[in-house]
C-alpha cells in the first residue's frame, strides 16, 4: 500500500433550494411523480430557458465561500448527449466560464490544516429521474431542470479520510449558506470520484479511473478504498491501469467496469445561444458578500476567542449547523455562552445520542432552554437540577419552565429562610421548650424545615440562620 500515493479528485453535485427550477418557472420541490414540471423542463419544441436569479445568487454565495474568482459575465453552455433523462437532448451547464474558479477549502486532518484546491464550481440543470424495470423504464421529470451546482476539486486529495473531511466541510458550506438541504440520502448531494495512484518519485499523475453518482459519504469512502486496493494490486503485478469509468458494487465491496475510454462521449459543448451573457455587476456581487452568513470555520473561531469555549467543544457545536444555530438562539437572550456550551456538550448531546435523537427532535424552545441556564447561573438551581429538569422535559415532552416551577427552586435567601424558621418555632412550641431546657434540637428542626419546604431549602444557609435564631431565644 505505502508504495503508492493515492491521488483523488471529487466532483460534487448539489441540488440548490429555490422556488423554481433553474431555467423554468416550474416548482423546485417535492411532489407527486411528474407534477413539478413545465413544457420547458420536458423540452417541448419552441421552449426557451430563463435563468433563475435566485440560483445564480446561491451559486455565487458558494463560489465566494470557496474563495473562488468570480467571472465578470455569467454565461452558459450546452452539453449535448442523448438519454431519456435529458428531455432537450442537451443539458444547460457552464463549461467555458464557470461561476467560480481557482478556489480552496481548508480541512483539519488530525489537527493539521490542509488546503483542498477547487478547480471550479458551476451551475447547471439536473436531469430527470429514471427507474429501469425488467422490461420497461419509468421517468420522473420532477427533477429535470432543478438547479444543480457542481463543485470540482483539483486532484489533490490523498486518502479516503481526506475525501470525507472535504465532503463534510463542503456539505457544511452548503448548510451554513442555507443554499441546500444537502441530504445525500435524498440525492441532493451526489459525488463523482476519480482515483489514480503514483509512486512518491513520480512527477506525472497515474491513469485515473472514475466512479460516478455515489450518493453517500460512507460509500465514497468504501469506493475509494476498494479502488485503491484494486489499482495497487494491478500495479504490484506489473499491470497497466486503464482509463475507464467504473461503478462501486456495494454488496461485493468492489468496483466494476462500466465503460472504457474509447466509449467516452464527445459532449460537443458550445455556448447556449438562448441565454445572453449577463454582467455580474460589482453591486450584485457586493450585496451577496455583505449578506453572507457566517460559516463553520468563523463561528468556531468566535466561540473559542469570544466565548472562551474549548477548541473541542467549539468544534462539536459548529460541526452540526443545526446544533450551532440552536446554541446561538439560546445565547442571543443574554445567556452565558460557556455555561450553555457546557450543558449542550456535557449533557444534551449525550442524551440525544443515548436516545437516538437529533437536535431537530428537541422540542424545548431555545428561549426556555436559556431561562433554565440563567436560573443555574443565578444560583437558583443546581447543575444537577438543570439536568433533571431537561431530562424530564425531553422524556415527557413538557415545557422545562413548568417542570422547574413544579419542582420548585431552592430557597437560599437568608431572610426568607429566617421567616420559615420563625414559623416552625411558632408551630412547635414544645421543641423551643426543649431547646431552652438544654436539649440539642438542631437536627430535629432541620428535619421539620425540610419537610415544610419539600427539601427545597438550602441546607448551608438554613443551618446558619437556624443557629442565629436559636441563640436569640
Amino acid at each position, binding site marked *: 500500500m505505502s508504495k503508492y500515493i493515492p491521488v483523488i479528485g471529487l466532483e460534487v453535485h448539489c441540488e440548490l433550494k429555490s422556488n423554481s427550477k433553474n431555467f423554468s418557472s416550474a416548482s423546485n420541490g417535492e411532489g407527486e411523480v411528474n407534477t413539478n414540471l413545465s*413544457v420547458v423542463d*420536458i*423540452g*417541448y*419544441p*419552441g*421552449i*426557451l*430557458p*430563463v*435563468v433563475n436569479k435566485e440560483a445564480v445568487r446561491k451559486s455565487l454565495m458558494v463560489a465566494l465561500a470557496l474563495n473562488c474568482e468570480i467571472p465578470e459575465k455569467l454565461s452558459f453552455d*450546452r452539453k*449535448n448527449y*442523448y*438519454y*431519456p433523462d435529458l*428531455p*432537450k*437532448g*442537451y443539458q444547460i451547464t457552464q463549461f467555458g466560464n464557470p461561476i467560480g474558479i481557482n478556489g480552496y477549502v481548508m480541512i483539519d486532518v488530525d489537527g493539521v490544516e490542509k488546503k483542498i484546491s477547487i478547480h471550479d464550481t458551476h451551475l447547471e440543470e439536473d436531469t430527470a429521474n429514471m427507474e429501469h424495470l425488467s422490461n420497461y*423504464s419509468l*421517468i420522473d*421529470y420532477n427533477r429535470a431542470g432543478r438547479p444543480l451546482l457542481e463543485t470540482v476539486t483539483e486532484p489533490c486529495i490523498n486518502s479516503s479520510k481526506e475525501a470525507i473531511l472535504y465532503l463534510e466541510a463542503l456539505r457544511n458550506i452548503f448548510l451554513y449558506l442555507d443554499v441546500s438541504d444537502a441530504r445525500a440520502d435524498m440525492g441532493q448531494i451526489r459525488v463523482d470520484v476519480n482515483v489514480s495512484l503514483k509512486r512518491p518519485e513520480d512527477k506525472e499523475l497515474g491513469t485515473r479511473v472514475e466512479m460516478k453518482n455515489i450518493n453517500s459519504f460512507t460509500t465514497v469512502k468504501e469506493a475509494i478504498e476498494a479502488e485503491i486496493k484494486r489499482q495497487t494490486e494491478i500495479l504490484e503485478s506489473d499491470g497497466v491501469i486503464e482509463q475507464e469509468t467504473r461503478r462501486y458494487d456495494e454488496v461485493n465491496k468492489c468496483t466494476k467496469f462500466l465503460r472504457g475510454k474509447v466509449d467516452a462521449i*464527445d459532449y*460537443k459543448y*458550445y455556448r447556449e*445561444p*438562448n*441565454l*445572453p451573457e449577463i454582467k455580474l455587476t460589482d453591486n450584485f456581487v457586493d450585496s451577496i458578500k455583505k449578506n453572507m452568513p457566517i460559516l463553520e470555520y468563523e463561528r468556531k473561531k468566535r466561540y473559542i476567542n469570544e466565548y472562551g469555549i474549548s477548541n473541542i467543544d467549539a468544534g462539536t457545536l459548529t460541526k452540526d449547523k443545526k446544533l450551532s444555530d440552536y446554541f446561538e438562539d439560546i445565547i442571543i437572550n443574554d445567556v452565558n455562552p460557556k455555561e450553555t456550551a457546557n450543558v449542550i456538550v456535557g449533557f444534551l448531546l449525550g442524551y440525544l445520542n443515548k436516545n437516538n435523537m437529533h437536535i431537530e427532535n428537541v422540542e424545548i424552545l431555545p428561549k426556555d432552554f436559556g431561562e433554565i441556564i440563567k436560573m443555574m447561573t443565578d444560583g437558583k438551581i443546581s447543575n444537577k437540577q438543570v439536568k433533571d429538569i431537561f431530562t424530564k422535559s425531553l422524556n415527557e415532552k413538557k415545557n422545562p419552565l413548568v417542570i422547574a416551577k413544579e419542582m420548585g427552586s431552592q430557597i437560599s435567601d437568608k431572610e426568607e429562610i429566617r421567616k420559615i424558621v420563625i414559623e416552625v418555632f411558632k408551630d412547635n412550641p414544645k421543641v423551643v421548650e426543649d431547646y431552652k431546657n438544654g436539649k440539642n434540637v438542631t437536627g430535629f428542626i432541620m428535619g421539620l424545615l425540610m419537610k415544610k419546604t419539600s427539601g427545597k431549602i438550602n441546607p448551608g444557609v438554613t443551618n446558619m440562620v437556624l443557629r442565629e435564631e436559636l441563640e436569640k431565644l
Partner: protein
Amino acid sequence: MTDKLIDEIRDKMAKNEVTSDMLFDEAVSLGNKYQSDYNSFVTILEKKEEEEGNSKLSGIPYVLKDNISTKGILTTASSNILKDYIPLYDATVYEKLKKAGAVLVGKTVLDELAMGGTGTTGHTGIVRNPWDKNRMAGGSSSGSVSSVALGIVPFAIGSDTGDSIRKPASYCGVVGYKPTYGRVSRYGLFAFTSSLDHVGVIARSVRDVSYVMDVIKGHDEKDMTSLPDEDIKYEDYLENSVKGKKLFYINEALNIKTDNDNLKEIIKNFENTIDKCRELGMEVEKVDFGMDLLEAIYPVYNVISCAEATSNNSNLTGIPFGSRVEGKNVNDIMMKTRTEGFSELIKRRFVIGSYVLQKENQEKLFLNASRARRLIVDRMNELFKKYDGLIMPATEDIAPLFDKASDKLSDEYLILGNHLVLANFGGFPSITIPSGFVKDMPVGVNITGRAKEDYLVLNIANKLEGTLGYKGQVKNNE
C-alpha cells in the same frame, strides 16, 4: 374581402358590411379551394376561436407557419416526427395576436423543420407558386407566403433563419419582413438556429406589416434574448420623409458575369428601383464589400445553422412527446424514432452539424465560422456608420421550376443568392417588397437596416413601395 389591405377590410367592418365571422369563413373557404393546387396548409381550422381584444387587427384573419406552437392545435413543423404533435402551450406571438383579436385561420406548410428554401420538403407535399404552379414558392415559410399571395388572408406569420420569409416573399410578389433579432419573442417558435432564428411577418403592404409588428413586438420575459420595449408605433413613422437617407448596394454582387437572362432582367429592375429611391431624395452608392467576406457567407451559414440545428432538434426522440417508434430499449426507441422521423436532407444537416461541433473539428469549423460571422457583421456595422441601409435585389433569379437543379457553387448563387443571410448574422431588420416582374414572375427588392431601427427600414420600404406601385398585389386565381 380577405384579398384586400387591412385598412380596407377595417373600413368595411366599421360600416358593418363585413364581419369577422364572414372574413373567417371566406378565408377558410379560399384556403380549402386552393389547397389541392397550391398546398399552403397543414391545418385549416374548422371553428373560429373566441375573439378577444380590440386593435387594428381585431377580426382580421391570418395564418401561422406550422413551426409556431399553438395549444391544442396540431403543430407539425412539416415533419413526420411531429406529424401528430399537439402542443400544450401557446407561442408568445400567437398569444399576442389572439389578445389583439386577430383570427387564426390555419397552420401553413414549411420546409421540414424550417430547414430549406424550396417549399418541397414538407411531410404533406410540395407548395406551389401562386403565379405559376410549375414553380416553387420558395421557403421555408412557403405556405405563409403563398396564402398571402393567393389572397386567402391579408397577413401571415413566418420565421426567417437565413432568408425563409424574404426570399419566398420575393418569389411570390408579397412583402416579407424579418425584424431586428429580439424584437419579436421567439418563445414558441420551434428552434432551428437559435442565434439566427426570427419571427416575422408576410403581408401585401408595408403598412400592414407595420400594423402586425406593432402588435407582436416587445419584450418577453420568457425569451431572454428579447429586446426591451420601445415606446413607439411603427405605423407612426411610415410616412416620414426619407430625403437624405443613404443606401448602399454591394458592388461585387451586381458585377457578376452571367448567362442568365433572368438575372440580367433582375439587375435592370434593380437599377430602376434605385432610380425610384433617388427620386425620393435618397442617396444610393455602390460599395466594395469584400469578396472574401461575401464568399464566406454561405459556408459560415451552413456550419452555424447545421451545428445549432443538431442540438436544437435533439429533443425529438419520441420519449416525452412526438410520434414514437417502439424498440428494444430506450436507446433503440430514440434511434428508430429519429431514423424514421426525419427525411434524408434533415439527417444530412444533422451529420454536418455533429461533425463541425466534434471536439477535434470544433475549433477549425464551428468556432472559425463564428469568428467569420463576427467579421461579416463588423463589416456591415462599419458600413452602417455611413449608410442607413443596404439595398439589393432580393434574389438572383425568379422562382425556380420544380425540375431545375440549382448550382449552389456558382457565383450568382454564392453571392447574390445568399446576401439576405447578412441580416440574420447581425440581427438586422430586413424587408423584401415587390419591385416588378421578370418573365411574368414577381421579383423583389430587399432593404436591410441598422439593428433596432425597424421603424426606419419600414419607413424607407413604405415610401419606396409607394413609388413602385405593387402595393396590395394579389395573384387572384379565381
